[in-house]
């Protein structure tokens, strides 16, 4: 953080003028602070992935520890993926370079680096594709836009495929739906074939494989954390909650990202869930084995994603639950919504999810059997099943950050807003072209939430922060809500940097604040132990 320049300076230095040299001529900037640290060999080992070296190495090194036949490996891998993914083939072939995507990328807006334009990011791969796999490329060579795969190209891939958060914003604007997330995924898979991976992704992945969650929390510690939250809840509300773990025969299995168990402010969201379930008297259980909703495999390869994801269905089957309820997380929901059933389904347990409280059948989750917590809560609110006192959130002026994945890979837009409008009185949306399906990434998604690239993260998060700043200044917004664990980790430093005075929260933390529990004591504090009444009186006067 110390090295990061002041916000004003960073903002002033954003330069969108194009360089004089062609982009192919410009080597990637792999100086310190511009790249994520490569993964530690032990993680590769643990996950049975190719390991280039047992030594520590740095992308800043001139020579990388890659096998001699690396070009062949990439070529074969590329060929394999072209056959496996029609998306890749089509996206390689049809781009007309209309430029619609260019200024849609938060990294381009923030950095002005032309290779952060989605079109050029894809062109990094496409140039090699043309050279190796097309007739025109073989005949016309450079004129067709092809180029051979050199070490510099490989370094470019490493640099720029780890400057993309797979947020899919460009894909929304592309007339052919070219999705840079797909391109980046393929690029990262290819890099993985050489063992070129970043630690901030592979360490959580290895943890998750072993302990069930990214943070490597072992079962007993997991339980202790939750019990600790229950103590806090008792202190704040006077209600004692005793959640169950790995309980067979529960109706519902609840899975949430482990960030909610281990990192503020996600923990307050966890407390919100617990309060909600207690309020309803829900027959649910938590699992220490499937204690992670998130899936860093998504940021590595589809195989790794499948390996990590398999635990959800397996655990649901083992416990014999009817269906799964999923907590607030972004990329977790991309995996659940678009991949899980295909990869690890069809499920061998349960039935089409049905809310035990309202009787609503979630037909849209008929096959995957997994419901998003805001879908569940919105339904409860619609049926007036919750006793609420929204004024307990009156010290907060709230806005909502649509996380990329639920927005553009799921279409979950109105449910969280419905919940927010029910549980708090001061809600303002950010400008329209920065929310919902047009939402901007937090700048740290897809495994880039790592300290060593802080400046890049601040620049990538600028469009999001700038929109928050707008409502902060206009409506006095001081609380940025979201439904994503990575957001809850990435947005606080982003806010501190660009918009000091805005806190970050999960939607269900606000639900927990507003819920009137049976037998509760008069609440004087919110779930963060912050006093409730300070600003409420002022508001009442107005």
């Amino acid at each position, binding site marked *: 953080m110390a090295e990061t320049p002041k916000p004003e300076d960073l903002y002033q230095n954003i330069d969108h003028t194009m360089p004089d040299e062609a982009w192919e001529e410009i080597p990637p900037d792999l100086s310190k602070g511009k790249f994520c640290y490569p993964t530690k060999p032990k993680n590769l080992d643990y996950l049975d992935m190719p390991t280039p070296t047992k030594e520590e190495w740095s992308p800043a090194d001139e020579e990388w520890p890659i096998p001699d036949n690396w070009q062949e490996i990439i070529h074969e891998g590329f060929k394999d993926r072209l056959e*496996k993914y029609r998306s890749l083939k089509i996206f390689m072939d049809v781009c007309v370079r209309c430029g619609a995507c260019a*200024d849609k990328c938060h990294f381009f807006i923030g950095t002005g680096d032309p290779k952060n334009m989605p079109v050029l990011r894809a062109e990094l791969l496409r140039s090699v594709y043309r050279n190796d796999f097309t007739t025109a490329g073989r005949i016309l060579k450079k*004129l067709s836009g092809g180029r051979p795969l050199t070490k510099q190209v490989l370094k470019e891939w490493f640099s720029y495929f780890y400057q993309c958060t797979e947020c899919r914003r460009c894909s*929304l604007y592309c*007339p052919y*739906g070219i999705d840079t997330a797909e391109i980046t995924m393929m690029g990262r898979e290819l890099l993985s074939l050489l063992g070129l991976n970043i630690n901030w992704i592979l360490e959580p992945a290895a943890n998750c494989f*072993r302990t069930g969650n990214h943070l490597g929390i072992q079962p*007993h510690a997991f339980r202790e954390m939750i019990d600790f939250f229950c103590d806090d809840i008792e202190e704040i509300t006077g209600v004692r909650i005793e959640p169950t773990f790995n309980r067979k025969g529960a109706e519902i299995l609840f899975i949430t990202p482990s960030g909610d168990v281990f990192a503020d402010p996600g923990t307050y969201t966890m407390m919100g869930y617990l309060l909600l379930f207690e309020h309803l008297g829900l027959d649910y259980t938590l699992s220490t084995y499937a204690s992670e909703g998130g899936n860093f495999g998504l940021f590595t390869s589809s195989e790794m994603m499948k390996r990590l994801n398999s635990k959800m269905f397996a655990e649901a089957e083992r416990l014999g639950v009817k269906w799964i309820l999923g907590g607030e997380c972004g990329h977790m929901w991309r995996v659940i919504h678009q991949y899980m059933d295909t990869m690890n389904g069809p499920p061998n347990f349960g039935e089409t999810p049905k809310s035990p409280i309202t009787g609503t059948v979630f037909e849209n*989750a008929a096959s995957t059997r997994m419901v998003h917590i805001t879908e569940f809560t919105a339904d409860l609110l619609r049926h007036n099943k919750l006793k609420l006192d929204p004024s307990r959130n009156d010290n907060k002026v709230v806005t909502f950050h649509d996380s990329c994945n639920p927005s553009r890979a799921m279409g*979950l837009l109105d449910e969280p807003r419905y919940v927010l409008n029910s549980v708090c009185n001061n809600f303002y949306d950010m400008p329209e072209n920065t929310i919902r399906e047009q939402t901007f990434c937090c700048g740290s998604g897809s495994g880039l939430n790592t300290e060593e690239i802080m400046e890049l993260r601040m620049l990538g998060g600028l469009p999001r922060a700038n929109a928050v700043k707008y409502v902060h200044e206009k409506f006095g917004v001081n609380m940025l809500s979201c439904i994503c664990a990575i957001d809850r980790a990435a947005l606080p430093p982003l806010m501190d940097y660009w918009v000091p005075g805005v806190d970050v929260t999960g939607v269900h933390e606000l639900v927990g604040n507003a819920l009137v529990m049976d037998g509760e004591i008069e609440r004087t504090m919110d779930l963060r132990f912050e006093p409730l009444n300070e600003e409420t009186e002022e508001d009442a006067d107005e």
Partner: protein
Amino acid sequence: MNVAYLYSLIAVVVLGLIAYAGVEAAGLDVFFGVIIPYLALIVFLIGFANKILDWTKSAVPFKIPTTGGQQKSLSWIRQNKFDSPYTTGQVVVRMILEILLFRSLFRNSRVGFGKGQHIAYKWVVWLWLFAILFHYSFFVVVLRHLRFFAEPVPFFVNFLEKIDGMLQILLPNLFLSGVLLLGGALLLLLRRVLLPKMAYISRPADYFPLFLIIGIAVTGLMMRYLDKVDVVRVKELTMGLATLQPGIPEGGISGLFYVHLFFVSILVAYIPFSKLMHMGGVFLSPTRNQANNTRAKRHVNPWNYPVKTHTYEEYEDEFRDKMKEAGLPVEKE
């Protein structure tokens, strides 16, 4: 300054000169009037089918639509049916909107840095407008040319000519589509040359078809208004092609026509090997042509293979003691 366009400009000019010289000086009428067009068509058909089948061969492992609006979830939440389709019917509508109205391009915006650290995203319609103008006028121009390839001329061609030539301008009557095509192509070209970002990302392969199409439009208009050709002879030639009885009409046709025909042939043959395949690809884009209903209907991945997982048994084996200690239930005591 990116001068990628120079390569393409020169290429197109040279191609034009080759055809002109080939016919006017070397008398290669048959080559440019019969052989090349047939060749181009064959290359197009084979190349196009090949490309599409090649795409078809690749699997669609996952359902990955980009959702542009509210999903279908609770009955009382209004689904955005056409940006986040749930049924095949809704997908069809989404595709129609995409292909016929360029829905996604319509969203286009431009980022701008305002005063006082304010970033604005202005809706801009120009790219969409130019693209619509260009594609639709091109389509009409192509359809209108059926008058050269069908005898009797089908009714819809006559109808189209009536509408297209509705305004009585010039003699022979000006077809608006021709002018719009030229205008649209020029605007797209100017955009590429003048906007720094566009110039930076553009390659010779982006300029080449544009110059080619501009060349086609200009030679077409020239044949109609400046160095006029005898349309009846042109039709004799084209009908010969269409009825597989090719021949060069008596009296010949001016070289300009062959330049036009050569440009068209090049364009047609060029399609399967270039970005112009977007005309087929847009139908197959997995982020657009799939329904957002994966949680309700399982999508099957044809190459789904078993992977190494960390089973609960392995997990419990590793942590059994700690679990017992923490009071967590275990399968094996």
